């Protein structure tokens, strides 16, 4: 019997993919910082020390202090925690509702599919950040509501993706074989369709994670997201704006944090797609 070993080439592809490695490293860095900030930060992220406001980087304040004398490094670390939370919850909402809808649409077809997909189109018709602003304006600003808003506009993206991918799986012969074996649609969806589109969903989730972080930063920048005194990258950026000409570094640090986190997640997502998407593998 000829046994082709599929694992080794996959591993080799991962280590050859520069974008994937850089993306994974950046993402790991952000996650690590967020985890460390849970138990330790160089200084308190909220302690105000007006005597040392706008201080330059030093041994005590690695990245200096802001206009209230708060430690910028600590604020960014806690902000990373905030961004991670936003990404995880918003993507979970998107995946949970969106993938369920998409799979149901693909499995049932007919009017169920039409209704769900037109609903997704309707949600898509509004620019994501605009609808997030609308939701936070209606429900009131705050971390929870902004996460909810970002999660809701994640839903149609996942619904569409999973429905399209699932339809591709449903026409495959092994689905017919499963139906011939006597399986119902729900069981086929869970056992055969979902595992076969999982890699696609993981890639999309990674990218949407970055989008969610960016969106939360945007909402916080506008004052609709995380509220003071809880640190968030978006709000730190907003506050730094006032001192742009006195202390430009205060704007650069959170901006850089946002860029690196989003860039890392996008590179990771693209890299994962290149490595795992069987259609791309076969083309090589």
């Amino acid at each position, binding site marked *: *019997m000829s046994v082709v070993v599929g694992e080794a080439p996959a591993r080799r592809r991962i280590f050859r993919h520069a974008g994937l490695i850089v993306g994974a490293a950046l993402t790991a860095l952000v996650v690590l910082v967020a985890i460390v900030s849970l138990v330790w930060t160089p200084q308190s992220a909220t302690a105000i020390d007006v005597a040392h406001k706008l201080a330059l980087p030093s041994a005590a304040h690695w990245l200096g202090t802001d206009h209230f004398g708060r430690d910028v490094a600590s604020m960014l670390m806690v902000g990373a925690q905030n961004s991670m939370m936003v990404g995880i919850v918003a993507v979970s909402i998107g995946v949970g509702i969106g993938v369920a809808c998409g799979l149901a649409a693909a499995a049932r*077809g007919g009017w169920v599919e039409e209704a769900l997909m037109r609903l997704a189109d309707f949600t898509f018709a509004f620019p994501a950040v605009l609808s997030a602003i609308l939701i936070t304006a209606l429900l009131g600003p705050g971390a929870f509501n902004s996460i909810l808003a970002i999660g809701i506009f994640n839903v149609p993206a996942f619904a569409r993706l999973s429905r399209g991918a699932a339809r591709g799986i449903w026409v495959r012969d092994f689905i017919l074989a499963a139906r011939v074996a006597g399986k119902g649609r729900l069981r086929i969806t869970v056992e055969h369709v979902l595992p076969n589109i999982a890699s696609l969903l993981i890639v999309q989730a990674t990218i949407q994670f970055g989008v969610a972080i960016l969106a939360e930063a945007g909402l916080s920048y506008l004052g609709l997201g995380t509220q003071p005194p809880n640190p968030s990258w978006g709000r730190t950026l907003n506050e730094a704006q006032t001192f742009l000409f006195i202390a430009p570094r205060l704007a650069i640090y959170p901006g850089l944090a946002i860029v690196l986190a989003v860039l890392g997640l996008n590179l990771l997502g693209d890299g994962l797609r290149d490595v795992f998407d069987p259609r791309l593998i076969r083309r090589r």
Partner: protein
Amino acid sequence: MALLEVADLSMALATARGPLEVVRRIGFTLDRGRILGIVGESGSGKTMTALALIGLLPDGARATGSIRLDGRELLALPEAALCRLRGDRIAMIFQEPMTALNPLQPIGRQVAEPLRLHRDMDGSAAQAEAVRLLDRVRLPEAARISAAFPHQLSGGQRQRAMIAMALACQPDLLVADEPTTALDVTLQAQILDLLVELVEESGMALIIVSHDLGVIAETADDVLVMYGGTVVEHAPVAALLRHRAHPYTQGLFAARPRLGGGAAPLQAIPGTVPDLAALPSGCRFADRCPLAIAACNAAPPPMHEVAFGHGAACIRLDAARAGAGA
């Protein structure tokens, strides 16, 4: 009572231009331990017939008439009851073994699936049974293959695995839709031999759907020749090999390549399969038939008995016989 009785079975697909009749009033019976071959070109309705038997018509398709398995009317059964029947009493194997297995699950798990579904077997018992089934379809090193993934097997091995999966619950009826079309010629013979052996061992009934007369002639007891959604001729294989009554069957035989046939060009049947959206009201083969006369287009030809158990739907059988004799 025969195991399977199909009567007056018609099927229509829903299209934007209205219903499209893809199968018209076909009927046959099949006993346990017998093999029925359904032969026809692409678009003759043979695969639709196979799918109707297992109750898996495409969305929007409608079947009328009667399909009785052991006296039980299948067309009237709700989906849940059909699910219990599928994979248990009726099983099916497909043309393309490369895609008919889930690429993410090991072979053994998939082979054992009908047992878990219909026999409530737990994991390890089903797994052991899967190995036994793989062994039964003459796969060497069944235990190793059971743990392998589909991409690690060859086409012939996968088709054997598919057959093992179909046999899991010892079905009464196995429907094989072009089971060897995607395989090498040497493998074809092995798979067909295996199917015939399994029928002899288990006493199930087998329907082989194929466009290849050679496959049917090698395996089947009886043959159904389909054209344009209708049965044009039915006969025991031996009788059909001696005498082809219908002009279409004659054309099909003439179009098949033969060893030692020299450099003589194959005789193609002129024209193409009729457009299902614009089916002629009379004989569906008339516009490609060398013997067609005006009356052929007037009404669908009735089935004429040529010999015992051998019928052909043609009004020019005498002319066809004269042509075949010459």
